[in-house]
């Protein structure tokens, strides 16, 4: 309860601050030339409302029984205050002989979902309250840090060096992450597209050498591992604190949590091991990027960890496991990306951009068969995409069209597995025991994205995003409209609509299809 009241008071502070600061004429950021500092202050609020009215069956770890309850209609109600501080210390720059810049981003958040309702997720307040705010508690330094990015930029000749906690994006694909795995995700709400909000910043030395215009060699050194975070990962006393109380808990997470909590008739204790920060546990990456004529390409290598913890049974198989250890597994990722724009003089194809990205990942871990024993795999992913502006002859502001096709092959399994049936198949995110939740050696999906701005100043932005999985036959649609009322205020309205089998990666959220609202208010 103490935390609940504290959370409510934070919300009050946000709202009072919003009212006070909105009453003045706002500018986007304020620069104080005499100090060389720029500050920006923004408030962002979003609410996701469940559309289907289905009851949900979840597992109670205390009574070790399943029960059915009406779900929460308020899936997610997040409030964020974003404060940015940027500085250019001139005297220090003059002293060292090259420009220096620093950046600090503070993003306190509060999600009223876990406090504001008396049913649904609000019922599980004691389990989920740690997700409510990052001002205190376990979120603070891990997956949703209060101080998100803070770094120093150094600009010596032919170099760009960024030291500190930061986000580093790789690759040329949208929403498919083969190379772009330097920052793992906070997937408490896996429907958010704005990666600045959901990527977990990492401590890194990010060094870019620019030997000549158009060519860059980047080296990345990351001493600390932050796993992808999702509802259901929370542990207490060696056990998951809930099964699927969170509205966006993946089926596979709910299933393993329930088993650990005793759904099979006995409890299985867990422990968690993070890699230490010794040099041999660091993440190392290198990227070469260059523009050669009409082709922009990158070559990438990353010596890293699996994006999330792997659940290892102590006996090597879940058939006999008496304990589970959560730890990441080392993997090597090598690949590249490229884009190319047609410029032939033929108006039918000129302006069409082709994109490609590919990566071979050695040492990733998939859960195999019905038992779901972890198996080291080598897999190869490849993505092809095409972008084009369409209807330009008919519309003042044409439609941006983007289509991607991605496929992933498991090339090699590094250990054999007696996995209780359905060997050679791997559990997907929605797996809860059925064959329909398993993927084969081969998986593919397509994405479609269309965007159009309208009205003078491009103040109305409409978009449609779609994902379809060719093997699971499930899909996700997100239509969205954003309207910039003024320079300081933007409203958003969108839907997340899912369809497919209950154990498929997107179909599992069919009963969580929702409408969402967004408010973006610039305060300073």
């Amino acid at each position, binding site marked *: 309860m103490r935390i609940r009241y504290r959370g409510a008071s934070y919300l009050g502070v946000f709202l009072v601050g919003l009212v006070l600061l909105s009453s003045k004429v706002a500018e986007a950021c304020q620069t104080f030339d005499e100090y060389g500092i720029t500050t920006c202050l923004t408030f962002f609020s979003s609410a996701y409302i469940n559309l289907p009215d289905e009851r949900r069956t979840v597992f109670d770890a205390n009574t070790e029984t399943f029960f059915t309850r009406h779900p929460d209609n308020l899936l997610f109600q997040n409030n964020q205050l974003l404060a940015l501080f940027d500085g250019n210390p001139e005297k220090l720059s003059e002293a060292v002989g090259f420009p220096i*810049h620093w950046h600090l981003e503070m993003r306190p958040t509060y999600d009223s979902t876990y406090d504001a309702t008396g049913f649904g997720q609000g019922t599980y307040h004691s389990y989920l309250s740690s997700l409510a705010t990052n001002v205190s508690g376990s979120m603070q330094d891990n997956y949703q840090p209060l101080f998100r990015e803070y770094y120093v930029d150094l600009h010596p000749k032919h170099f760009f060096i960024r030291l500190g906690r930061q986000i580093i994006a790789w690759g040329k694909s949208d929403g498919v992450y083969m190379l772009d795995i330097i920052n793992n995700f906070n997937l408490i709400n896996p429907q958010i597209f704005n*990666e600045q909000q959901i990527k977990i910043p990492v401590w890194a030395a990010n060094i870019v050498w620019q030997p000549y*215009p158009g060519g860059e060699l980047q080296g990345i050194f990351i001493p*600390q591992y932050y796993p992808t975070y999702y509802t259901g990962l929370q542990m207490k006393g060696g056990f998951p604190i809930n099964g699927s109380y969170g509205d966006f808990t993946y089926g596979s997470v709910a299933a393993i949590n329930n088993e650990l909590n005793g759904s099979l008739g006995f409890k299985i204790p867990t422990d968690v091991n993070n890699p230490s920060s010794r040099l041999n546990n660091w993440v190392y990456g290198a990227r070469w990027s260059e523009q050669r004529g009409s082709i922009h390409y990158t070559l990438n290598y990353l010596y890293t960890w699996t994006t999330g913890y792997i659940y290892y049974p102590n006996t090597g198989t879940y058939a006999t496991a008496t304990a589970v250890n959560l730890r990441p597994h080392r993997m090597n990722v090598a690949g590249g990306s490229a884009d190319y*724009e047609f410029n032939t003089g033929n108006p039918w194809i000129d302006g069409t951009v082709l*994109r490609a990205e590919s990566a071979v990942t050695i040492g990733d871990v998939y859960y195999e068969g019905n038992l779901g024993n972890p198996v080291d795999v080598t897999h190869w992913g490849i993505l092809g995409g095409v972008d084009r502006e369409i209807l330009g002859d008919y519309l003042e502001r044409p439609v941006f069209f983007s289509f991607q096709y991605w496929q992933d092959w498991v090339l090699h399994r590094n250990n054999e597995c007696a996995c209780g049936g359905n060997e050679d198949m791997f559990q997907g995110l929605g797996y809860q025991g059925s064959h329909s939740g398993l993927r084969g050696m081969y998986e593919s999906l397509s994405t479609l994205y269309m965007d159009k701005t309208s009205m003078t100043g491009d103040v109305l932005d409409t978009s449609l995003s779609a994902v379809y999985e060719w093997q699971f036959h499930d899909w996700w649609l997100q239509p969205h409209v954003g309207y910039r009322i003024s320079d*300081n205020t933007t409203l958003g309205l969108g839907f997340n609509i899912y369809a497919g089998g209950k154990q498929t990666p997107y179909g599992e959220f069919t009963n969580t299809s929702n409408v969402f609202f967004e408010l973006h208010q*610039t305060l300073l």
Partner: protein
Amino acid sequence: MRHYDQGQSRRTKACAFLIAIVAATVALFLSMRWTVDGALADSSAQVPDVPPIPKVIAGKPYSVTPGESPGTWVVKWGDQSMLWKAQPWMEDRQQKLGPAFIAQWATPGLPFPFEVPIAERDKIPVSEIPDRCLTFSYYGPYYNNGWDISPIIVHLPDGSIRTSSLTLEHYTSFVNGNGKQYLASTDHNVQRKYMWELTAPEELRGEGGVTTVYNDPTLVPEDTLYLPTVRRTRRLAGAVAKQYFPGSIYRYEDVSYSGALPQLDYKITGFKLWDPSDKLRGFNNEGIPANVKRVSGAGEVVAIMEVTPKPGISWWYAKRIEYVGLISMCTYYTEEYDASGKMIRQFTHLPITGANENVHVGGPDGPNNAPRWWQMWGVACVVDLEGGFVMDGWIQKGGFNADSSPSIYSETTLAAQPMTLVEWLSH
């Protein structure tokens, strides 16, 4: 787990500190701040303090004589004449010199685009006019780079502000041999590079892009767009010259695709002594801050250029009339018409010079000592006669020859999401 994390956190911080020290040390050893080869920038041409008035322009006699009242001049070209009056929004030197200020760009010995003798400028091939008089008036090819920070305000028909944005710009043209440090060995046939980034409004902060324009007009310029929400740079589908520039009612054709376009036909239909109406946006005090002094083309002899889409090409106008100054080599005004002959838009462009107090050399805090004849864009306005919207853009602070990195036109610059000119130019 918690104790373990705390221990790890201490080690992590120690390691991060160690990395910082090592990297900074390495950087110090490697550091020798890049220098722009200033010798390449053309500041050698000598322009008299009071430039002589050309005698003949476009085959007709041209003269300037003092008017009856102070601050006025009588300008005659052929059988046309006008009374020139100083305006408070004109650059101080133009107010003081009168029409002779414009004559500085007729000085023999000036580089491209002014190298053609004034008596021959009416014979410049029409296909060269858009680049010579708009592209290279925006930013001259006689310096290594131009840069600025520019507000862009869109007004509703009732005059209130609909949107406002703040843009950082960096530009280099390679046609005079300047700026070669920004070119890769594989950059063949590149005429110019242009980079922009929005620092406001907050909703669009960090959005930016690089445009590469080629000497071959049949090649579509290459555009990249950095999207801060995904921290990634995308190749923009090309052939967008007629479309709106993001967040504004400029067209790409007004901003970065400003050369002769293969989709359009160009012809000179005549010449006139230009006496711009003070009702034209930009040619009065309306909408632009009082401290934004600029150059008026009043008293110029302008070429009247008609632009029409080629047969079968769908364009946003049926005809465009451009008024192009032959002395200052500057496109001051265009008006666009639909197929019924109705005027649908006006666009005005008033440059600023090296003598402007908002213009600096080397960086935002650099000296105000650029050659006085150097030009860059100063004010650019659009009046949408159909929708009633009006847009004003102007240079708040700008300049030449920033000490910027040869690799500034890169994804790294955009991904750093610079917030200020100082930071922008340090890349």
